[in-house]
């Protein structure tokens, strides 16, 4: 049995092959044709057929942002008469308050490709004006004349009654391959967000199906295995599902990281986990409680984030289940700079992977957090995924421009830690959770360097550095379960509603387990809390909602509670490969100077593979492995656990 998982990230394509033993590889990503890196990696490292192939990719986001010359297909939108510009007006806010030169994200549907249909459904689902498909002939002709590749249809209140949308889709499907109706993608109220979701889905349909076709032909050389893809919600879905609803895979890579943390936390028996994934340009945090991930339905693709949360109106809203992550733009490549008055700042600019940190010697001029870690002795000079050596002299020179290079480096890292702690606060404190009760899982190329200092900011006393932190997300793919979602709004009868959704899901997943949720709010509130449902009893759900509201916000209200949307996840557990066995090497620790709290200290540097299980190491210390370094600050004690994890405890 050969299982392969591939996580295509912005810089590296991570490949894990399990064939009796587990092997980890990194190859540079080929952004314009991501399947190329897959081909190169597999040809180099695998000479067998693959039985199971699991995949995460950034192609959807990259296409929407128009990166790497990826072009978007010509897409049209058909709306209820009187509402064609909802997609442009959005929520009528601007993403920046004080910028006179602001621009909205480029509209995905130009004005001339927005059409209206004479139809209307009211708030209760009654057809006020039934759609006469004959009246749509002109629209159809215009779509053909404009060489439209994909069509989005979004009518008011279609989540209550999709009849008009379905009829128009049936009418147009004779002429177009790619059609999304809003009821099919996002059957819930709020017309702008639903329209945007449908449009994003339509735009992505040709892009993603084209990519998957090319990927399939690559995999034909390796026995044509079945492809499963990681969804935003952290479950595996089939290629068919992704082709129909490409919005499924917008955040597939980051989701894989949280799933890895979740699954590994079950192996270790830890109930409350913060997953903290720090890469080259961003850091992402999420919570995992009792091995369950938090789901949110609000997301904006390509949006910019402000102190960890996406700024409304800065991207394209997508209403689809996503693992709830907060994100800050602090990564290894984050740039350190001084403003005109000489005050120290970090980010949000990033040197990314091109040109990368100054020490990469690829033309980077501004010092980055990675440069700081290098000069402080926290990381060594081996470059991840390459044979090259990092240039400490160049990093030093760049930092010197800002002052004493070591002091600047240390302050910059402290500022970054504060931002990252802020991201973690958002996913805990916002929900009434105390971060101090959690264990922090630090991974991603840069996560292990800062996990313990960040934990200190939050009063967290337990940190885990999982095995292979640099490719931990790809490991998450190996550990994920099959998971599909379906939802409906304003159900009249709860049991009938849930059963109906489950029937629908049974077509997609064989013999699944079901998880039921209800999105509830006090009437008049602007957003909902998602409440797990054990029995479809309105009073019980309302009680659970009230408790959650009280825990999260600290009060309840004498107000009716409404159930806006119900959703079901169909889950099928997979047989998980053994990912926790590690190698053992014999490397002696050596000493290195590390800059800690304003002075140099000689600390021991250990090789992770060479640590005997259970041996305690007191900070300050550095533990190195391929692709990352773990920094153990003073006051922390670390040991290698039985599942090949590093366990750190605050003394």
């Amino acid at each position, binding site marked *: 049995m050969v299982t392969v998982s591939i996580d295509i990230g912005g810089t590296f394509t991570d490949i894990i092959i399990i064939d009796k033993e587990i092997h980890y590889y990194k190859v540079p990503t080929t952004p314009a044709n991501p399947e190329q890196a897959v081909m190169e990696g597999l040809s180099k490292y695998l000479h067998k057929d693959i039985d199971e192939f699991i995949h995460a990719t950034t192609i959807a986001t990259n296409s929407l942002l128009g990166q790497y010359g990826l072009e978007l297909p010509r897409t049209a939108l058909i709306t209820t008469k009187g509402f*064609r510009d909802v997609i*442009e*007006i959005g929520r009528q806010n601007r993403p920046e308050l004080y910028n006179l030169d602001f621009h909205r994200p480029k509209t995905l549907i130009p004005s001339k490709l927005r059409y209206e249909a004479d139809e209307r459904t009211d708030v209760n689902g009654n057809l006020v004006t039934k759609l006469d498909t004959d009246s749509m002939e002109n629209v159809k002709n215009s779509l053909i004349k404009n060489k439209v590749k994909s069509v989005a249809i979004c009518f008011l209140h279609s989540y209550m009654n999709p009849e008009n949308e379905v009829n128009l889709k049936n009418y147009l499907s004779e002429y177009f391959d790619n059609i999304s109706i809003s009821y099919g993608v996002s059957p819930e109220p709020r017309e702008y967000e639903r329209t945007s979701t449908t449009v994003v889905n339509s735009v992505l349909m040709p892009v993603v199906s084209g990519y998957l076709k090319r990927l399939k032909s690559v995999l034909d050389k390796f026995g044509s295995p079945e492809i499963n893809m990681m969804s935003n919600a952290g479950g595996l879905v089939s290629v068919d599902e992704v082709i129909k609803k490409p919005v499924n895979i917008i955040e597939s890579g980051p989701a894989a990281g949280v799933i890895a943390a979740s699954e590994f936390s079950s192996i270790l028996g830890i109930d409350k986990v913060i997953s903290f994934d720090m890469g080259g340009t961003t850091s992402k945090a999420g919570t995992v409680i009792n091995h369950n991930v938090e789901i949110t339905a609000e997301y904006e693709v390509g949006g910019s984030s402000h102190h960890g949360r996406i700024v409304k109106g800065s991207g394209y809203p997508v209403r689809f289940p996503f693992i709830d992550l907060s994100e800050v733009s602090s990564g290894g490549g984050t740039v350190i700079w001084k403003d005109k008055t000489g005050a120290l700042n970090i980010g949000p600019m990033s040197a990314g992977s091109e040109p990368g940190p100054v020490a990469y010697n690829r033309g980077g001029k501004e010092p980055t957090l990675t440069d700081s870690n290098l000069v402080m002795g926290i990381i060594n000079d081996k470059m991840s995924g390459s044979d090259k050596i990092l240039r400490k002299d160049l990093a030093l020179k760049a930092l010197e421009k800002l002052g004493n290079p070591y002091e600047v480096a240390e*302050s910059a890292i402290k500022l970054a830690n504060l931002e990252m702690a802020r991201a973690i606060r958002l996913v805990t404190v916002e929900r009434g959770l105390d971060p101090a009760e959690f264990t922090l899982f630090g991974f991603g190329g840069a996560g292990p360097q800062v996990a313990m200092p960040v934990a200190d900011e939050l009063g967290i006393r337990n940190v885990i550095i999982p095995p292979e932190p640099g490719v931990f997300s790809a490991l998450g793919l190996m550990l994920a379960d099959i998971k599909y979602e379906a939802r409906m709004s304003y159900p009249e009868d709860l049991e009938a509603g849930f059963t109906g959704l489950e029937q629908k899901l049974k077509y997609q997943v064989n013999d699944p387990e079901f998880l039921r949720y209800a999105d509830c709010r006090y009437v*008049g509130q602007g957003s909902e809390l998602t409440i797990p449902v054990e029995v479809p009893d309105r009073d019980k759900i309302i009680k659970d909602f009230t408790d959650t509201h009280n825990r999260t916000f600290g009060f309840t209200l004498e*107000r009716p509670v409404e159930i806006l949307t119900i959703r079901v996840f169909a889950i099928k557990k997979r047989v998980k490969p053994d990912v926790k066995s590690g190698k053992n090497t014999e490397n002696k620790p050596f000493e290195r100077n590390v800059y800690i709290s304003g002075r140099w200290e000689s600390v021991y540097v250990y090789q992770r593979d060479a640590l005997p299980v259970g041996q305690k190491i007191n900070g300050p210390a550095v533990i190195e492995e391929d692709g990352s370094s773990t920094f153990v600050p003073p006051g922390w004690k670390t040991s290698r656990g039985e599942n090949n994890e590093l366990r750190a405890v605050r003394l």
Partner: protein
Amino acid sequence: MTDWEIIGKATQFIAEEMGVALKRSAISPNIRERMDHSCAVLDSEGRIIAQAEHIPVHLGSFKIGSRNIINYMREHNITLKKDEMLITNDPYISGTHLNDVTIIAPVYHDEKIFCYVINKAHNVDVGGPVFGSLNPDARNLYQEGLIIPPVIITDDIIKMILANFKDPETARGDLNAQISANKMGINRINELKSKYGADEILSSWNSLIDHSRELSLMALKSWQSGEYTAEDYLEKGIEKINIDIKLKIDEYGVIADFQGTHSEIEYPLNAVEGVTFSAVAYAIRSAMRYSIPTNDGFYSIITIKAPYGSLVNPENNYPVSGGNVETTQRIADVTLRALSAFLDYIPAASSGTMMNIMMGGKIGNKYWSYYETIGGGNGGRYDSNGESGIHSNMTNTLNTPVEIAEKEYPFFFTRNNLRRNSYGKGKYHGGEGIVRSFRVRSRTYISVIADRFIIPPWGLKGGFPGKTGKLYIISNGKKKSMPSKFSTVLEENDEVIVETPGGAAYGEKQ
């Protein structure tokens, strides 16, 4: 010794986190979805250390409001004890209008007040004769709702307040959210104190303010010193109400002198000093074009000279509800216009009105009230067209989704599109306004406070003005054009059509 940058950033995060807490737990869509609220940390003297604002009109008004509240407490010998909070909505003290309710709480250290946390949120109804409390017919402050002087919050005070607000349940939720946001702020400041120590924090806060002031002065240095004047107008019926500004700019600061501006009026367009300050501060800050931390350092470079008894600094008890939503836009416009004399990148005028619509009525034996604002066209820029269907300058509140509004209120929407050809033509044209229309499904009271129905948004460098706003009511098949400010009753099935102004153009069309 910890760097001040680190403590400064931590303090900014506290203000932000208070804002998140407030938004997430508030009830009214106005705060939850439209984010009509702001939070700040003040030092014991009332100087703003860090502020998280989501809506520019709160930007500078906090400075004036905080100063006034601290002075008021001194004059009246009020010392807030630990766990006590003070509430007020008196616009002549807190600096905006009655709808904005401010709550302030002390943070103690060694038995002394160390600093304050404060927040302000727009409550959808604060009493008075009309739903939503923005009363176009108000002739004095008493006709705009309940005035809450600075008083310490007690259960009785809350009872008293809620008995006067028309949607007490919503108001209770929103006030709770404001109180809990302050509690969170207090806890965070206490954590900060135990981590870094009180002295270290105070000295860092001073550095933070100095830094912001220094950045602001550097921006001013690149500006051309001098005196720049401009004039713009509001509409009162067909009467023009002028706002005159003389901006005096040198390397030490900006003085905005409103000598010559129309005197105060018995009409809800008066702008209290806080509003005037905030609109000028908004324009100056935007024109500086780089990011400056919002704190007293930035504010300290701006001086307002607003004649007492004028439209932009009225005597107590003149009505002010529209000052905060409409006059504020015009003050920003006139300040930007003055700046355009030497800064080429100042855009042409945007729609210039928030198009405030307040509605309410009775379903069964319960009152409902609803408030929305509608975006317009953004002005053309020196290098690009204006954006369409968007809020400009002093507001940035979200619209209410049609599907949610229809679910909760007796409306049936018929349109929400861009208003074609509403922009001014030129080298870079403005953005388009919005057409939003709806029918009411039951008898509804409506009040509107809007502007730019007669005098259009102005173009720059030869660009044409945008189209003026319009509002129609169709009743029994008859379409009636309405003025920019009115209140009336809509009968079942009456339709309201709102057309917001388009943005003006920048530059002559070649």
